[in-house]
């Protein structure tokens, strides 16, 4: 084969590959999807979701999928702020009644006399499950895929291999069944512990289920006949949940997939012999009533959700905040959801290729990683965030929001040096609170994407107070209209009052040594840990970094052997209770295995917490929260750290984007202008093959001297 043939073959392959692609050679999507997929959103996932079962899924990469498929009775309003619960499959918000001793109705404010609360949820009629083999029926109306034999399963490898599919109407029974699944001892719902404190008969149900099904791995556990006292079907479309005492936060849980309906047929279908061997399981193929259904689940490569043909006609919201009208977020008001046909999620493990593909238009939206921050964001003259020219030229837009989360540094309150209720330790903690400059931390390590925290409650959640009255007076002064961290001299004074003048420990006569436990040990963390050491150095304290892996770190936290640590919390729901409970004494990690990692316990704080959690948002609750915040600020069990800011970028064709940090079912609101996307993709991705041709010519040209040298060498005398 001569060199001309080789070149022709290369050109033929290039043309063939080019022909296979969607205009651009670097298009990562197959051309056969072009026609059908105009109204598609392209996104990615970096890790295979562990579970897609609403009873156990709890992480964001799982919610990315199941929140579009399963529908709990309630949801958060997409546009309204503060976050507002609205009905989803329910016809209205739950009706709540409170009962006292002897079953008499009592007022919701008579918290002490409330023995039970009862939530009645009425769902809409006519909602259908997505098409699924579990619902397939024959002419007689019998379910045909629930008693499959080994022979029936021959040739079945994936769910789409089942020919017979069907659907049925959603009923209250499906919601009750799912709550029983939460209580199941074998499904490991992460909220089982929380619910067992409230739902009447929860523990008894678990006991009965264990007795009825002693082997967790055997067959289908039919929970329908096992009685759960606190949950019952009232009629075909109504069910009732009875809880101990008062727990207003229950409604927030009802907006999470844990409380989404589960059809018993689906569970039985997947529990049949031979299904697990084929990897056909509820964790792999969800069955819901939501706007989308998972039609391709290959998490090693791609996951595809398509519009559920049976989706009930939910409409795009017609009301929003004043700026939503200006931002065009209500242009689709009243339109039938979902606004797209399909969403394709490709596996993308690394941020660099993701970012490049986003810039090429192959992904519709992107977060801003630290690698790409400088390329995407610049600071304006007023210190505000602006998009760089490159982003502006591409028509990319930026949306920012302070997350409903907190990254804090905690003191182990059981530690004899930094913990405890003594004035000495309190002064020490407060001195450290001043010395560790979180504004600097945010600036250096988070590219300015964060807000220094004044207390445990993030902005956007009831109880967070903006302005002068909301600052932490032990760490900040209000100057020039903003909080200013107190000077280091104040911290040094506190150190002296704590008995550590200039940071010297009187017991040893040497600098006070404190230990910082962290699971961050890589090269990336080194700069942060050095910075942290320097902050303590300001007070003369020697900070010892005890880096370990995450498993050992957790073990230390559980055993209470840490001294100072850094941790975080993402809100489950937009209620201050979900943050203050991290400081509630009976929730301490060491004693009670709870989420209070600092093991903080203050009887007055605990009393106020118990009061606050049971009252509705209003002046009384706000006053209680203020009191609690003041106690916590004074005791300083945490350095309050900061609330990170989420930055997201999206292309001009990707519309109806408003950050909503509570809702996970946002895909149905998104809209794409596919013609715009297609045009821009083609313009941005014209192949630039001339450098390759030049390299080829250069290589060919270099063959001439090479051949000459070869021949010369061949003719020369060998040494």
């Amino acid at each position, binding site marked *: 084969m001569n060199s001309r043939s080789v070149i022709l073959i290369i050109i033929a392959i290039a043309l063939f590959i080019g022909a296979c692609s969607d205009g651009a050679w670097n298009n990562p999507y197959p051309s056969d999807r072009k026609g059908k997929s105009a109204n598609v959103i392209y996104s990615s996932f970096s890790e295979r979701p562990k579970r897609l079962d609403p009873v156990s899924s709890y992480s964001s990469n799982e919610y990315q999928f199941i929140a579009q498929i399963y529908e709990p009775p309630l949801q958060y309003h997409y546009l309204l702020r503060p976050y507002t619960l609205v009905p989803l499959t329910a016809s209205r918000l739950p009706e709540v009644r409170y009962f006292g001793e002897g079953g008499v109705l009592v007022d919701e404010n008579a918290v002490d006399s409330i023995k039970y609360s009862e939530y009645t949820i009425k769902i809409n009629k006519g909602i259908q499950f997505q098409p699924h083999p579990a619902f397939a029926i024959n002419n007689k109306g019998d379910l045909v895929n629930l008693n499959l034999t080994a022979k029936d399963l021959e040739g079945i490898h994936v769910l789409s291999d089942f020919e017979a599919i069907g659907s049925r109407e959603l009923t209250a029974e499906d919601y009750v069944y799912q709550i029983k699944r939460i209580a199941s001892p074998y499904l490991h719902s992460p909220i089982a512990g929380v619910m067992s404190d409230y739902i009447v008969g929860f523990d008894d149900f678990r006991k009965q289920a264990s007795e009825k099904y002693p082997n967790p791995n055997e067959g289908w556990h039919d929970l329908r006949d096992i009685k759960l006292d606190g949950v019952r079907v009232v009629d075909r479309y109504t069910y009732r949940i009875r809880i101990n005492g008062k727990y207003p936060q229950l409604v927030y849980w009802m907006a999470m997939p844990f409380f989404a309906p589960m059809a018993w047929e689906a569970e039985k279908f997947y529990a049949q012999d031979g299904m697990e061997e084929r990897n056909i399981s509820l964790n792999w193929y969800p069955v819901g009533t939501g706007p989308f259904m998972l039609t391709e689940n290959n998490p090693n490569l791609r996951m595809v959700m398509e519009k559920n043909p049976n989706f009930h006609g939910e409409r795009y919201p017609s009301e929003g905040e004043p700026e939503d009208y200006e931002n065009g977020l209500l242009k689709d008001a009243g339109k039938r959801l979902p606004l797209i046909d399909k969403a394709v999620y490709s596996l993308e493990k690394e941020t660099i290729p993701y970012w490049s593909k986003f810039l090429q238009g192959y992904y519709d939206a992107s977060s801003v990683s630290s690698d790409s921050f400088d390329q995407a964001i610049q600071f304006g003259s007023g210190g505000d965030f602006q998009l760089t020219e490159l982003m502006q030229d591409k028509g990319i837009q930026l949306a920012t929001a302070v997350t409903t989360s907190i990254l804090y540094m905690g003191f182990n309150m059981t530690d004899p040096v930094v913990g405890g209720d003594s004035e000495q330790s309190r002064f020490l903690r407060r001195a450290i609170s001043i010395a560790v400059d979180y504004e600097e931390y945010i600036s250096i390590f988070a590219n300015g994407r964060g807000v220094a925290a004044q207390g445990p409650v993030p902005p956007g959640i009831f109880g967070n107070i903006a302005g002068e009255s909301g600052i932490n007076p032990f760490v900040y002064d209000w100057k020039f209209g903003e909080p200013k961290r107190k000077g280091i001299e104040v911290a040094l004074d506190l150190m002296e009052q704590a008995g550590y003048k200039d940071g010297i420990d009187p017991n040893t006569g040497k600098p006070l040594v404190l230990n910082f436990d962290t699971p961050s040990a890589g090269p990336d963390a080194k700069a942060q840990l050095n910075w942290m050491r320097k902050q303590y150095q300001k007070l003369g304290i020697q900070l010892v970094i005890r880096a370990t892996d995450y498993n050992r770190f957790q073990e230390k936290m559980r055993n209470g052997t840490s001294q100072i640590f850094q941790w975080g919390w993402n809100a489950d729901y937009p209620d201050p209770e979900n943050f203050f409970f991290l400081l509630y004494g009976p929730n301490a990690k060491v004693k009670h295995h709870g989420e209070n990692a600092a093991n903080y316990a203050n009887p007055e704080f605990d009393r106020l917490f118990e009061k606050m959690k049971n009252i509705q948002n209003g002046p009384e609750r706000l006053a209680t929260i203020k009191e609690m915040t003041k106690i916590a600020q004074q005791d300083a069990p945490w350095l309050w750290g900061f609330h990170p800011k989420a930055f997201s970028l999206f292309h001009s064709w990707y519309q109806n984007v408003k950050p909503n940090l509570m809702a996970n079912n946002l895909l149905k609101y998104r809209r794409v202008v596919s013609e715009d996307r297609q045009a821009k993709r083609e313009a941005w991705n014209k192949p630039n093959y001339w450098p390759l041709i030049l390299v080829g010519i250069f290589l060919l040209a270099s063959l001439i001297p090479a051949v000459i*040298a070869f021949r010369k*060498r061949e003719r020369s005398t060998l040494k």
Partner: protein
Amino acid sequence: MIAYIIRRILYAIPILIGVNILTFLLFFVVNSPDDMARMFLGQKHVTEEQIEDWKSERGYHQPLFYNAEEEGVEKLTQTIFYTKSVRLFVFDFGRSDSGRDISFDISQRMWPSLAIAVPQLIVGLLVTISLALLIAFFRGTYIDYWAVVICVALMSISSLFYIIGGQFVMGKVLRVVPISGFEDGVFGIKFLILPVLIGIIGGIGSSTRWYRTIFLEEINKDYVRTARAKGISEQMVLFKHVLRNAMIPILTGVVVILPLLFMGSLITESFFGIPGLGSYTIDAINRQDFSIVRSMVFLGAVLYIIGLLLTDISYTLVDPRVRLN
């Protein structure tokens, strides 16, 4: 030869047991069953009872090596090591901790790994052997000197640099191939070009230099001098005599890695989003999924042993003087 092969297979059994014990110890030194349960169940609101249930359902509630509460042989069999390891020897990998059939996953994910590794190996061998022969041909000249310098430079650069640089130049600047991704079938070819190319370029430095050394060793032997004395052209000497006789060390390196091609490349698969066995293993390590980790380590050990055996057998094919006994 058959007796030799049988003997080698029998030798493999204690090696595999050793590998299993080592994997088991290393894994459980870092991760306790409690850690695994917490990783699976998540961080929030998890109770001790749920952790115990999770362990019990998956057999992680037993002691690691010795169960003092049992009687007789069950002291050894009612342990995590026995229950999780013994079936590996009949290649029953069982299910992952998240419930997936590991054998099925391996059968699915080995093809993308092979799709990258096989062309990379074949084209890479052709390129590096040709280059090494060419350099050997120009031995002692400036071409040889600079070629070695370039080879050393190429082998000193991190593979990550080749990947990121390749993605930047080919995918972002020239826009001739996708930056990352994977597809089955013909459409998938364009996803393979860049990782294969990068793999070849990344391997040129070390392989060419090594093969050059092998060729130079051969080139000074008596039979080569005799061939030249007979008037055979240098081209023929290199391709017909030197290359053939240099095949043993080349085969040693190549055949041993043939079975390991299945195992994939951790970095390449991660950066290019290729759903191969390399990323399968690294994901399992990150998730603390012991069932997958032990299966992949076991499989890797078996394949390595097969590779060594194939190398021995291949010696007999390229060199008639070698006899296996």
